[in-house]
């Protein structure tokens, strides 16, 4: 005697983004922490040494935050005008920043007053950075020039005058300079004003962001463009590499941060923020993502530690009665024990119990209970489908009073137009109309619901018609755009046709 096979509830695939390794990784951050700065956050830079403080350049200040504190550990406020581009040296001891007043300042991380001031630019300095040997500073300014400074004695070593526009990180044309030569080595044309540049750790690839494009250049092949990514719909403002170099992040004025795979250059994940993004930084090991926005808000997201992430993935909370049921379940009989097996009682859902007894109306009633009907309409639909398969749907639907009928109609109104349920519910709706057409007009409640159903049906038909029209239009577009391909045929088939 086979046991009763319960009604199969169809599982409908959830629409939406697929869960991949990447989404799991990039979603594993805690709720963001927001810190209000004084003005738009133009730059964020992490210190390369532990504890990985980060410098946030906003308005006339540079704040340094610790990895966990939400208050600035230190702040540099001795700027006369807007500060730009606060950056750490590779040993984390020195910090350089440009300023609107064309002076470049060098700070000791522990000090307060600038150690050195580099004067020479005639306009605002937007770009400052240490060279890789960490003894020199490179600055770019609105006076179209780019200068190289010696740190200890604050002298200008070199000035590059080849640019023809503000250096905000580059411009239409950006050039590669060699520190030993005083001419550009390579000039690459991005096409739009360049907002951000990023050199791969291997120094073979260069990523530039400008306009809506992110472009990757192969420096070893004389600056040959490798890919051009167009995934943002507003200007891309900042770029960042993940710690292992396998993912590239780009922030944009369209309020999104996108994560690209650096082998396939496909977007693998996407973050949304509240305002346009100006700056973006990733802590070493991707421990946190810091994003600065135009409205002066600094957004911090820390990675969850192992226990916290486990907590989410584990089973949901159990009811107190669970303990009773699980009691003794994990007891393994010893070798000498005589095991008396008890027949396992099959647990059936309420509607299945009724279906097993062939109580079709009652089965439908239980499936139409408020909770199931509202929370899990697929169960109700599955029961209706099962009844239809048994050929007893008509019997189940018939013989209902006003209340029962209105409940049914209510369910239909709610779910008839769901494409997943439509095939099943249309048959049911037809049957209901067949059965109850004689009593139409006797109850105002039912009549109102029927009218509503009719109205929704008309709307749905119009909608479907429009969709079909669109489909037809698209088909013609596609058909004309595809190149025609000749299929080789043997002589025989040509003859037949």
């Amino acid at each position, binding site marked *: 005697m086979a046991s009763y096979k319960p009604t199969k509830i169809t599982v409908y695939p959830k629409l939406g983004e697929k869960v991949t390794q990447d989404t799991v990784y990039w979603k594993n951050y805690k709720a963001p922490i927001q810190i209000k700065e004084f003005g738009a956050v133009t730059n964020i830079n992490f210190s390369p040494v532990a504890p990985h403080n980060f410098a946030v350049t906003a308005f006339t200040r540079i704040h340094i935050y610790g990895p966990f504190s939400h208050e600035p550990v230190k702040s540099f406020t001795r700027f006369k005008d807007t500060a730009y581009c606060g950056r750490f040296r590779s040993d984390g001891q020195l910090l350089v920043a440009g300023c609107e007043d064309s002076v470049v300042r060098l700070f000791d991380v522990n000090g307060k007053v600038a150690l050195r001031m580099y004067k020479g630019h005639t306009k605002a300095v937007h770009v400052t950075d240490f060279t890789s040997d960490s003894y020199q500073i490179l600055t770019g300014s609105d006076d179209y020039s780019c200068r190289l400074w010696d740190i200890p004695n604050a002298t200008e070593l070199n000035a590059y005058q080849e640019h023809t526009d503000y250096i905000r990180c580059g411009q239409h044309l950006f050039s590669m300079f060699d520190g030993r030569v005083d001419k550009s080595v390579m000039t690459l044309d991005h096409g739009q004003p360049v907002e951000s540049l990023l050199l791969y750790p291997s120094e073979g690839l260069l990523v530039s962001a400008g306009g809506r494009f992110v472009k990757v250049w192969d420096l070893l092949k004389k600056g040959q463009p490798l890919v051009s990514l167009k995934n943002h719909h507003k200007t891309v403002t900042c770029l960042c590499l993940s710690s292992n170099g396998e993912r590239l992040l780009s922030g944009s004025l369209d309020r999104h941060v996108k994560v690209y795979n650096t082998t396939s250059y496909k977007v693998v994940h996407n973050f949304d923020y509240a305002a346009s993004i100006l700056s973006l930084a990733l802590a070493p090991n991707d421990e946190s993502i810091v994003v600065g926005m135009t409205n002066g808000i600094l957004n911090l997201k820390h990675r969850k530690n192992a226990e916290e992430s486990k907590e989410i993935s584990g089973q949901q909370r159990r009811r107190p009665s669970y303990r009773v049921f699980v009691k003794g379940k994990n007891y393994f009989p010893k070798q000498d024990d005589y095991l008396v097996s008890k027949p396992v009682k099959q647990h059936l859902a309420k509607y299945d119990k009724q279906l097993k007894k062939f109580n079709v109306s009652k089965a439908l009633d239980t499936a139409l209970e408020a909770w199931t009907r509202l929370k899990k309409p697929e169960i109700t639909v599955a029961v209706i489908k099962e009844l239809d398969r048994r050929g007893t749907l008509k019997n189940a639907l018939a013989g209902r009073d006003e209340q029962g009928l209105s409940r049914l109609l209510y369910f239909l109104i709610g779910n008839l137009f769901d494409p997943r349920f439509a095939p099943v519910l249309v048959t049911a709706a037809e049957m209901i109309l067949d059965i109850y057409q004689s009593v139409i007009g006797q109850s105002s409640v039912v009549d109102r619901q029927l009218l509503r159903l009719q109205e929704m049906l008309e709307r749905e038909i119009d909608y479907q018609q429009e969709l079909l029209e669109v489909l037809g239009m698209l088909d013609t577009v596609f058909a004309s755009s595809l190149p025609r391909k000749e*299929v080789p045929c043997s002589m025989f088939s040509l003859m037949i046709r």
Partner: protein
Amino acid sequence: MVEHGDIRVVHRGGSKINSREPVISSDSRLLLCASGECVKVFSTSTEECIHDLRGHTGLVTGVLLRPSNHLQAYSCSADGTVRLWDFTDGILIKWRSVGKACVCVCTCVCAELFQLVAVHLPQSGDRLVEARELSAVLSDVSSNPAAIAFGRGGEYIVSAKGLQLEVYFFKKQKSYRFSLKENNKKGRKNTFTCVASHPQDDCIATGHEDGKIRLWRNFSHKKEYTYSTLHWHHSVVSSLCFTPEGTNLLSGGVESVLVQWRYNQESQKDFLPRLGAAITHIVVSPDGALFCTSHSDNKITIIQSCVKVSAIIQGLVKGESLSTDLMVDPRSKAMVLNGKPGHLQFYSLQRDKLLFNLDIVQQEYIHQSGLQQFEVVKAAFTASGNWLASVEERKQKDAELELNLKLWMFDEQSQSFVLNTTISAPHEARITAMCFCQSTDSQTTMLALTFMAVDDGPSWSCDFVGAYHSLVPECCTFSADGSLLAVSFQEVVTVWSPSSWELLTTLSQPPGAIRDLCFGKLSCSKYLVGTTANNLLCCWNLLTCALEWSTSMNTSLLLADPLSENMAAFLNVHNVDQIVVFVFKPNEPRPLYSHKAVCSGNVTRAVFAPREEMLDSCEESSQWLNHSQLYFLTQCMDLMTFTTKAEEARQMAASKQLVIDDSIAMTPFHLLLGKHRGQQQQQESGQDSLSAERTPLPQGSAAIKELLQTPAHILPSTSFLCSMFVQSLLISVTDSRSETKHVEEEMESEKEEDSEEEEIESRAVRPPEMARCGQATETATLTKAQVKELRRVKKLDHGWLSSVLDL
């Protein structure tokens, strides 16, 4: 054309076991049922087939226990003979020809001829026959054996046909007829379907087409008869049976529910629901301990009288339509076809046994006539057997076609297929063909109508939808290496590349739609062979994209052997109405082998099943049978195959070896130990007189030492040894000490050459031999033989054991 004498077409199992009602032996241990041309004897406890009673040349139409000797049984057959068997040993005792071929049941009558059929039926049967010879009263008898029954102690016979019930009393030689009105108010049918009579009471139970059961009483009077009605079944009552004591009435029908009614307390009933398929017969064992129901899906269920299923004997299920083709599961080498509604069955060809049913639809089956159910219509395996794809469909009158494509993955842990993906409504119309890409890499592709390819991975998704001039594709096949896909669209064959989904070329051969397509294998992989509806067999060369050769023959079926280059074509010769089989290689239009007159009627399905072990026949004509065997299903759903003489002889020998001549539910161990134990017991009983003067056991007996000193890991399990060992010790004690010493010495000498287990065995055996020399000779030889047998068992690979024990 060459005709080869040494290859024969043989019938290969899978016959119906539910055609007639089974019979349970009086001790409830054995079950006899008619199965094709033989009677099968099953054990009721282990479900194992113990032996076949072979001898009839026609379909067996009835089996009956001999009332005077409960160890013998009669069987009658359509070949016009009645045979008497000793069914415990499987020996034919005698047979009598009735003279005329008749469809008959032993207990009753021939349905068509009204002839006496069972001449030497003792007692009631005899009397019946005599009586009928004299008067031939029952002129209008239903052909259904269930509609005839004998009354209490053979006093009367009841027969029902149509709306009439006829009771004939042998003593009075008088018959009474009762008839019912044709229709009730509700327009339901009153037609009689089955009859049963109470063993002690004057009461007849009749089943009706509308599901009612009527209990007739007082029927020895023309006018004053009465009947009461029981109604539970919603459709036809197909079988009724009283228990031997007459306390219960069992009924069953299409609902597949066994209902047990209390006699005289009809409001109380017990149910045994969900027996799987419509009940066709119900039988109760003579002692009333077991019920037995046979079902329409070729199944016999054995039920204990407490209404609990104890065993199920399942035969090959042959539905009305074989919608899935015959396939071979690459893993278990079992033949796979659709069986029970919504199931795929795995049938072992070698052992003629249904291995298991895979539930594809996974829905509660509603036993109701006229209800449209989901049917499994297509199935396909990957070459490795890791994946199974199945298609189920349900067509209602005015609703859309419901289609489900399911993908099953083989689970190593549970050793069965587990549902991986369900795709509902993969196509808008019926799926015409489906196949897996046979390539070795992990990417597996599958396709069907309008055709769609699906990719695997953790999930399956549609890869490509292709169409050709909006024609309907008929059949599709992948080449052996998976680099080409051929799909036929009516008379055009299109060849696609599965890697890029490009249409590579089209081949066509006017006129006539393509019926079958096969790629050549191995050395012939450049050929594509197809058959058309217009009697053409064409072979294309794929390198030149041209027709290599074609012949005109009316091919009904074409299939390729997966393990060799060979292909087999079944031909319909119209004027002769016979089927001819050709086996050929695609590279030459010359048959390797042909066989005329394979069977009458069309061959619809066939399959090449790989052999478990290769044959090494080097004769050209039978070489094609070396790797695989060709099985086919005839129109009347008989499973046939081709075998060579040598192979048949070998099989016979093997089967004889395996036959176990004891009828007890048995295992090889039981065979060995049971006999041995029996002997020991005999000896024991013989020694009862001696046992009085038994001396206490010597504590330091050599045997005990031996047993204790043997490393435990070499010893067989203690349960195996214990009783024998203890018994042997008990017996040895009856003799003097000197003799035990003697035994000990012998043990020592034997030690070197024999393994430990044998020593223990021999020790168990020897002492009685020593004890009583007079009687010993006979037993000693026997025991020695048994020692040898045990030795053999030990040396054998125990893998075969599991195959014997397998349920």
